[in-house]
């Protein structure tokens, strides 16, 4: 045997997946150690999209930061805006008018649908179903159009202000949102026809990347990835913000803790989001869109943490204000993608190369958010 070992390299095969790879959803690098096609270990290397956003925020004034939060989770910019603005409002005890809270709810849910569309498209594409990708992007386009009509931007909206909204909705916008809800409802059936009962899809996702609830909580998973493991945790329900306490919706959870259940949870979230949007638009109150905000925003000295439910999980802002300067003393973000990515080495261990891309898709990361200002550069397995 010794001679054979000398002749052939029987070590594990190490391959670099990324940072330039079609399905690592951006500049993620995964160093895989393979035994044949089986993954025996991996290192997740991040930091390729590091722009020091947290540090940058500490040298901008409070209103300018809204714009920077756009650049973190750039597929769900409005949610980031809301999260930040609410944190500052909490810090300054500003009352947000009811109309603004309703509109924030609508925007957050539209954003959730857009983000889930992108997730569904890329996730299905990774597993080889390329048509779903274009179908999902077709609907995402409609949402981007709605946002464009509201604030002029299609990706980085800068659509919130501390204390409310920068603009009221254009006339007729609410009707368009309702029309979109009807379209989306029918298109969802279309996606499900292509995937939910497709045998290949089932075989590719069932039993892949199982993570039991206790472990999911220990790792710090949040959002659909956590709910897929059966934990009924949704900040919209548990610590309601905006107008979530005034609308009815369910929190879907999975049972099998695998990729398929995470898929089902997100598909159901599409439906719940539509339900929330319909209720919020129909019950949209009249009134001002900005609360009583001082001309110069200078929160009193203190610190606060506030989290909201982004499409990917819990996005939290920890802000320290010293009460003297017009920019935060310390600005820190708890991004869902970063924390969820920690589960990746655990999830892909023992699976095949083909499952790696399915699992990266299944935890739904955005690298802009992962690299928002971290100091660690890799997760060892």
């Amino acid at each position, binding site marked *: 045997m010794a001679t054979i070992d000398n002749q052939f390299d029987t070590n594990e095969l190490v391959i670099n997946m990324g940072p330039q790879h*079609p399905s690592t959803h951006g500049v993620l690098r995964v160093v895989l150690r393979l035994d044949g*096609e089986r993954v025996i270990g991996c290192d997740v290397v991040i930091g390729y999209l590091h722009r020091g956003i947290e540090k940058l925020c500490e040298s901008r004034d409070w209103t300018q930061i809204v714009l920077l939060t756009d650049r973190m989770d750039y597929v769900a910019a409005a949610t980031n805006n809301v999260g930040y603005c609410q944190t500052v409002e909490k810090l300054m005890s500003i009352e947000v008018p009811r109309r603004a809270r309703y509109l924030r709810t609508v925007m957050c849910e539209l954003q959730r649908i857009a983000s889930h569309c992108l997730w569904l498209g890329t996730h299905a594409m*990774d597993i080889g179903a*390329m048509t779903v990708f274009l*179908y999902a992007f077709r609907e995402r386009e409609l949402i981007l159009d709605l946002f464009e009509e509201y604030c002029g931007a299609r990706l980085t909206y800068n659509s919130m202000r501390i204390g409310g909204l920068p603009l009221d909705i254009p006339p007729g916008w609410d009707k368009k949102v309702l029309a979109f809800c009807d379209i989306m409802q029918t298109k969802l059936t279309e996606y499900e026809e292509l*995937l939910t009962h497709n045998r*290949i899809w089932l075989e*590719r996702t069932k039993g892949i990347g199982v993570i039991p609830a206790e472990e999911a909580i220990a790792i710090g998973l949040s959002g659909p990835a956590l709910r897929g493991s059966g934990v009924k945790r949704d900040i919209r329900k548990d610590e309601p913000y905006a107008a979530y306490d005034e609308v009815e919706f369910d929190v879907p959870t999975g049972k099998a803790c695998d990729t398929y259940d995470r898929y089902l949870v997100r598909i159901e979230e599409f439906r719940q989001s539509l339900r929330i949007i319909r209720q919020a638009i129909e019950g949209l109150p009249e009134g001002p869109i900005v609360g009583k905000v001082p001309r110069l925003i200078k929160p009193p000295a203190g610190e606060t943490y506030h989290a909201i439910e982004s499409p990917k999980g819990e996005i939290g802002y920890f802000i320290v204000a010293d009460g003297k300067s017009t920019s935060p003393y310390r600005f820190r973000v708890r991004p869902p993608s970063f924390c969820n990515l920690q589960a990746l080495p655990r999830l892909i261990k023992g699976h095949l190369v083909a499952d*790696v891309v399915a699992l990266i898709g299944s935890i739904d990361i955005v690298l802009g958010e992962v690299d928002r200002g971290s100091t660690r550069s890799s997760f060892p397995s």
Partner: protein
Amino acid sequence: MLVAVTFMVLLERKVIAWVQVRLGPMRVGPYGVLQPIADVVKLMTKEDITPVRADKIVFTAAPMIALIPALIVFAVIPFGPVVSIFGREVALYITDINVGLLYIVSVASIGVYGIILAGWASNSKYPLLASLRASAQLISYEVAVTMTLVSMIVSAGTMSMIGIVNAQYQQGVWYLFAQPVAFFIYFVGGLAETNRAPFDLPEAEQELTGGFHTEYSGMRFALFFLAEYANMIVVSSVATTLFLGGWLRPFPNIEALSFLGIIPGWIWFLLKTFIWLYIFLWVRATLPRYRYDQLMRLGWKVLIPLAIANVIITATVKVLV
């Protein structure tokens, strides 16, 4: 033939675009019909890169090994019977050898070497993984496909491609209806052998970044590309000959439908082949991709036993009837 292949690429892009509510190529010529010419010119003028650490000879030979078998298989595929054009007898096939089917199986399987060698010679990790996948996949599916061909030979009593079409004429039934199981296995196996979705593991773009042709560029890449499409056409035309009665019109023995006979045989042949090709594209646009182990399981645990059972049943029926 090569022209057919290049237009096949256009057809694929168009069909998939329509499925995906897009337009597909529109710029070159009306509705993009001249796109293949532009593609060929582009690929020919691209820089031809050979990686420094590649095995140069094998690296160069691999694309040729992949393409040539796919082209020479056409020698035995009958596009039509012997017809007279302006009083001259012209056979619409190149040759009719009495072991036609055997010839196809043996020549077509040489093409696999192209992929294996390409992956090996590239001296790169992703292509290597892809070529390992390709060899395992193609070998296991070839067993199933060849077993179905055996049952076709038993049914027709001949290995000549012309003979098989004539047998379908005499028995008055397309083998699609007489041998549905064989048809199914051949179809699935055909998808796998041509590396098409949902069995396109060796080139799985999302996993292996293009698979065995990752390191190839320019015309050498084009040869692989051509080989893939040529193989699709081969599989489709063999399927047409075996299961859809080749150049025969539908229901060849029913006199009432003899008006269909005014359409020449080769048009029927092409029509049927195109239906096959369309199904290939349709499947690709719809289905996700299998995983490696699932693919092997399907091949060895489902298709091969089914194929063997089919041979036994066919032979028994043949002896008894």
